[in-house]
């Protein structure tokens, strides 16, 4: 059959949804009656299966990059991307163990000299719960507070045009002395000086922009399209990560 028996019954996306097992009953009924659409569904399934093989591990860092991560020889931004990837990819985590294979280790984090602090810093920041503030008058987005060590970080997004906006924030230091002591040393503001030098904006694990942090702890990213972002605050050998920032 060269054409659909009744195109009016099918909307764009219906057949792909059916191939994924998420279509409505009316779509299933149509596919049962229409050989042309059943053929398209079969092709979509074959395509996704083939792409799964062909693109397997395409998002993984190169083996050489894993090696440089192991040696702590990557720039902070790239180190962060690899650390995030390792937390989600058991294959790369297993490969990282191969760099230390003569010493079997169940806890590879503990075995990485000089890197455990980076990863601990990342993981600690991820665990910090989000505490929303009240909506500021005139703002289109709600600023959020994050806590890392004795620092509070406020981050907000404001639309500047229909498709663009400004992502800005300020590091508020120090937080309350009553805050529980962190398990590891995190950045501490001293004598009015901010411990961070710059902040990096990531989207889909790719670096978007790097901006300085001024003496008052403020930073601004302009002309940012809506989307989901991560921010990495570089400090000495460590990185503090704030993930899942939605703009707007």
């Amino acid at each position, binding site marked *: 059959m060269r054409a659909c028996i009744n195109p009016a019954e099918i*909307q*764009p*996306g*219906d*057949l*792909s*949804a059916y191939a*994924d*097992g*998420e279509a409505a009953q009316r779509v299933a009924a149509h596919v049962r009656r229409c050989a042309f659409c059943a053929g398209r569904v079969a*092709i*979509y399934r*074959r*395509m*996704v*299966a*083939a*792409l*799964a*093989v*062909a*693109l*397997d*591990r*395409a*998002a*993984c860092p*190169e*083996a*050489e990059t*894993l*090696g*440089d991560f*192991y*040696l702590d020889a990557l720039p902070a931004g790239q180190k962060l991307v690899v650390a995030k990837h390792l937390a989600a990819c058991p294959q790369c985590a297993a*490969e990282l163990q*191969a*760099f230390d*294979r003569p010493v079997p280790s169940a806890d590879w984090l503990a075995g990485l000299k000089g890197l455990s602090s980076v990863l601990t810093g990342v993981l600690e920041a991820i665990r910090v719960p989000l505490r929303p503030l009240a909506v500021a008058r005139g703002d289109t987005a709600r600023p959020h507070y994050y806590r890392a060590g004795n620092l509070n970080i406020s981050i907000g997004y404001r639309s500047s045009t229909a498709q663009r906006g400004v992502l800005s924030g300020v590091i508020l230091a120090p937080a309350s002395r009553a805050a529980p002591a962190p398990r590891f040393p995190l950045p501490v503001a001293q004598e009015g000086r901010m411990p961070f030098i710059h902040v990096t904006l990531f989207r*889909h694990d790719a670096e978007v922009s790097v901006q300085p942090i001024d003496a008052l702890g403020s930073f601004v990213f302009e002309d940012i399209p*809506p*989307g*989901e972002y991560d921010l990495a605050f570089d400090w000495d050998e460590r990185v503090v990560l704030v993930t899942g920032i*939605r*703009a707007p």
Partner: protein
Amino acid sequence: MNPSSDMDVGTLAARCRDEMAKSRQRQPADDRYCFELFRRALALRDAAAWDAICQQYQRLVQSWLAVDDPDADALVNDTFTRFWQQIPLDRFQHAFHHLGAVLGYLRKCARSIAIAHWRQQKRQMELEKLLADQQASSPERDPLRDLTAQELAAYVKARLDEREWLIIMLSADGLRPRQIHERHPAQFASPHEVSRIKERALDRLRGDPYLRRLWGET
């Protein structure tokens, strides 16, 4: 005064070999001779010192590679080549202060080469199987087999927009539209929007004569 600094390369290599033998027998060993050999090879680009290192450390590199197949010799060669390329003239003095640091870096190169080799072997096996299933009647070797995952991904990505690419990657990872929507609610308003964009992306990829062979359309 380092006694090794005035030695010729032949003497240095012999002393290095002796000290390595002591180290293997768990006896106290002086690593200054081997370190000096590396310094001359990498910081001074001394070809004779480099040849001595390749001979001296070949078996150690083989053990780090842990690869037992016909490619093993080529991988040893790749390891030394990468090690040489990654240490520019001015870097040796700053980066390496003792033999352990140099050997740690050489081992990193070997392990990286081995991991890349394992990845490519596994990928080629899976692609061979996929393409054999799809192209049982075709006698020609398909060039798709020789592409790395990253190269093929770059080819696919160039044909899609940002959201289409994200969906295709996540779908290839086994995520369904509902899961993709839950993971990226700022990007996609609903699971059906994911399906709509995915279908558009798949239809575009279907039109590519190069990729069509992956799923057996000619």
